[in-house]
């Protein structure tokens, strides 16, 4: 075994190394070098297609984002920042018309891989396909753009977005990393063209795809950012098994995986390879969540739902769980690093977040007794995915046992799991809420009743909650936004306990330290065009 060797001295360095890697993003002070091929592993099976406007999986992003550009995006040098920057536009616009009109100026001289020149028409056509898909066209994220009234190209270099109402949720939504800009000519010829072909304006050009195995790209000499990309090319290898990816990085068959590993992997790689491994970590805009089926007794009773939340020792167990699973930070419905998130003191007022777990569990037992649901036993529906679903499951079963509640897991593969939730065939389910660019106002849309949010499986109606949400979405004053968000958190998590939020995920990316110029962000969907990545070899 590897750990039998004398790594004692290095072990001491590990902790410092991790800390150093975290504080120094390795971007400043070094001159990027040109050249080299980046080999990385994609933690999934190959996606059904490389059409991001249609797909939902990050496998599409990790494989093909380097071939495309978007209108605006998260800042590649600082993806955690709430300030979005231009990709294909020249300058972030100031909204006019009371915040309802955004006018973007499009870069000139941008070339598609087939040689044609990008114009505002291409941008407008792509966005119209995403927001207003014609019959028979699949656009899974169209509901993120309910505030958009129209998208028009008013000149070859101008695209205008008209909104139905002014909202701060618009710009983060527009930075959607799936919103690749396609060629209008190609879409006009065949709106499904991009499901089978690749043609974009990104830093790399498509070379080949070995079905189910790997994708290869080469430097785009005509890329509109002069001097970029630094790499000569890249190869992404699909490797769904975690052990394969860890071994691949350890043996330098691959330099990096962009999604995130559990902490044990970071420690193992650090221990084996010392400073040949760098680590970046970030809170992740994904969280675990337990949804009780309000149509099943006794989960129609808010007291029972609140009791289930009160039983969970979030503050106490998060440090231990974060050593073994990709979960880490205690938080409410709002991404904890967002300026709009409730403070710790505010959270501690909400059921399930009380600082004293014994008091909390005593209250849980009391509530169950009051609701006549003592010795409750039920089935916990879970998804057949290791990290973090199964860890959540094991943890929850144990936590609930401590208030005398007996839960048995029913674990299903993705398809049947969805199907069971949609068919309302479950007592309580473990699920997740994973968003890309942090959009505090829009991201909580998931917790709205099914009539508004198709992704909510709680089976309840709640007009008060919808009103609260609509008010929040239209509020432009930051302080008032924050207060409304807190009220929303308290209402959903405590008063009604429609959802029981668990822990926010933690993104840990250990990689070969010769990879430079890539900065971790709060989402594995964001900042994947590899334009600024270079190799220090």
């Amino acid at each position, binding site marked *: 075994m590897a750990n039998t060797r004398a790594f004692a001295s290095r072990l001491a360095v590990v902790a410092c190394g991790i800390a150093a890697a975290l504080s120094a993003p390795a971007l400043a002070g070094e001159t990027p070098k040109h050249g080299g091929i980046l080999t990385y592993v994609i933690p999934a099976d*190959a996606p*059904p297609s490389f059409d991001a406007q249609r797909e939902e999986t990050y496998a599409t992003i990790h494989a093909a984002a380097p071939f495309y550009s978007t209108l605006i995006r998260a800042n590649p040098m600082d993806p955690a920042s709430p300030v979005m920057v231009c990709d294909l536009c020249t300058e972030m616009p100031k909204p006019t018309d009371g915040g309802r009109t955004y006018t973007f100026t499009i870069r000139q001289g941008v070339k598609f891989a087939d040689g044609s020149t990008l114009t505002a028409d291409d941008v407008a056509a792509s966005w119209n396909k995403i927001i207003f898909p014609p019959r028979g066209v699949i656009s899974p994220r169209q509901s993120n753009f309910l505030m958009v009234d129209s998208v028009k190209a008013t000149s070859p270099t101008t695209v205008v977005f008209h909104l139905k109402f002014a909202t701060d949720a618009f710009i983060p939504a527009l930075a959607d990393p799936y919103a690749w800009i396609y060629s209008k000519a190609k879409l006009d010829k065949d709106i499904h063209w991009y499901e089978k072909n690749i043609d974009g304006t990104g830093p790399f050009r498509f070379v080949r795809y070995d079905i*189910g195995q*790997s994708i290869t790209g080469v430097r785009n000499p005509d890329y509109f950012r002069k001097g970029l990309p630094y790499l000569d090319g890249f190869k992404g*290898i699909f490797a*769904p098994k975690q052990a394969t990816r860890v*071994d691949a990085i350890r043996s330098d068959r691959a330099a990096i995986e962009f999604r995130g590993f559990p902490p044990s992997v970071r420690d193992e790689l650090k221990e084996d*390879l010392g400073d040949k491994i760098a680590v970046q970590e970030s809170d992740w805009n994904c969280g675990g969540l337990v949804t009780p089926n309000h149509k099943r007794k006794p989960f129609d009773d808010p007291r029972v739902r609140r009791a289930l939340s009160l039983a969970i020792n979030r503050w106490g167990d998060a440090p231990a769980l974060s050593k073994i699973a990709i979960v880490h930070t205690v938080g409410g419905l709002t991404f904890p690093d967002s300026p709009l998130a409730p403070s710790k003191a505010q959270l501690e007022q909400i059921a399930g977040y009380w600082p004293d777990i014994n008091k909390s569990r005593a209250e849980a037992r009391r509530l169950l007794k009051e609701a006549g649901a003592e010795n409750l036993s039920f089935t916990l529906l879970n998804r057949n995915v290791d990290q973090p679903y199964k860890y959540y499951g094991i943890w929850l079963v144990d936590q609930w046992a401590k208030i005398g509640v007996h839960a048995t897991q029913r674990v299903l593969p993705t*398809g049947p799991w969805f199907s069971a939730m949609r068919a309302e065939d479950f007592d309580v389910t473990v699920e997740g809420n994973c968003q890309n660019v942090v959009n505090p106002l829009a991201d909580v849309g998931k917790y709205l009743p099914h009539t508004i949010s198709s992704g909510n499986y709680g089976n309840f109606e709640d007009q008060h909650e919808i009103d609260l949400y609509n008010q929040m979405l239209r509020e432009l004053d930051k302080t008032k936004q924050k207060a409304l968000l807190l009220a929303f958190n308290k209402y959903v998590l405590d008063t009604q306990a429609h959802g029981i939020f668990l822990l926010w995920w933690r993104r840990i990316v250990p990689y070969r330290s010769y990879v430079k110029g890539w900065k971790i962000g709060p989402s594995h969907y964001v900042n994947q065009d590899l334009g600024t990545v270079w190799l220090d070899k």
Partner: protein
Amino acid sequence: MYRYLVNRILLVFPTLFGAAALVFALMRLIPGDVCLVRLGSGGTSFSEQALQACHAELGIDRPWLVQFGQFLWGMLHFDFGISMWSGKPVVDEIASRFPISLEVALIATAIAVVLAIPLGTISALKQNTWIDLLVRTVSIAGIATPSFWIGIMAILIVLDLTQWIGGHPWMPPIDYVSLWKDPIRNLSIVALPALTVGYRYSAVSMRMTRSAMLEVLREDYIRTARAKGLLEKIIINRHALKNALLPVITVVGLEFAFLIGGLVVTEQVFNLNGIGRLMVLSVQNQDYTLTQALVMVVVTIAILANLVVDLLYAWLDPRIRLK
């Protein structure tokens, strides 16, 4: 013999039909569908319109009978259709994965045969000596250990060993290249999985060789040969082994057929992009067309292998041939 042959071949068709019906029904009994998996696996919510558009596009809402008829009709002229998951022709999906599974299966078979026949023979000849015990223990251990475990351990040992010797951990590449393109790279990819599978496979064949050999050695004609004073070597090679090989061929043949679709776990462990992994994937994705085609391919191979083994048996064994 002729009637036997015709009979045997004709009986292939009902089996194929049954398998087709079984996979068709099984796939549709699984709750959910390919659209849900495709739209929902990212963990974010998706719009209902997208789901409806997807259903319409793939035609999964048509009656089962219509779909089954189409499936059978397609099979009759070798048209497997389009994968519901990727939209690529099913034939391309399978063809791009077939070589790697075939290669691993072939090499594993070679390893199994080369190890099993001599070891099994020696073990039988030296029954209940320490050689016999050793060979049996090693082979039973091969059968008793979960194969994925051997695989995981094999990779770890290679990594640790190379790090210990040269300071740089090494493992085989994780993206397959064909034998013609880069033989060395290809073989370094295939070696470990083939050894892992070959170990278990040779253990099974070894036991079969041993027991068949033991059986034959008790036969009267061997005793007669011995009594005649024939050289032991000739007795073993000319008489005993030849007869003992019959059941061994059966086992090797049937295992080989099984391997084509049975490498599921091994392919996961070694990140091989083969038929077994594709099969798991296609069921999990609820890709009806691809799963149906894969099952038909695997079943056909299994039936053909059975057929060939039976015919070989009939041809080699005069008791059956003359019946």
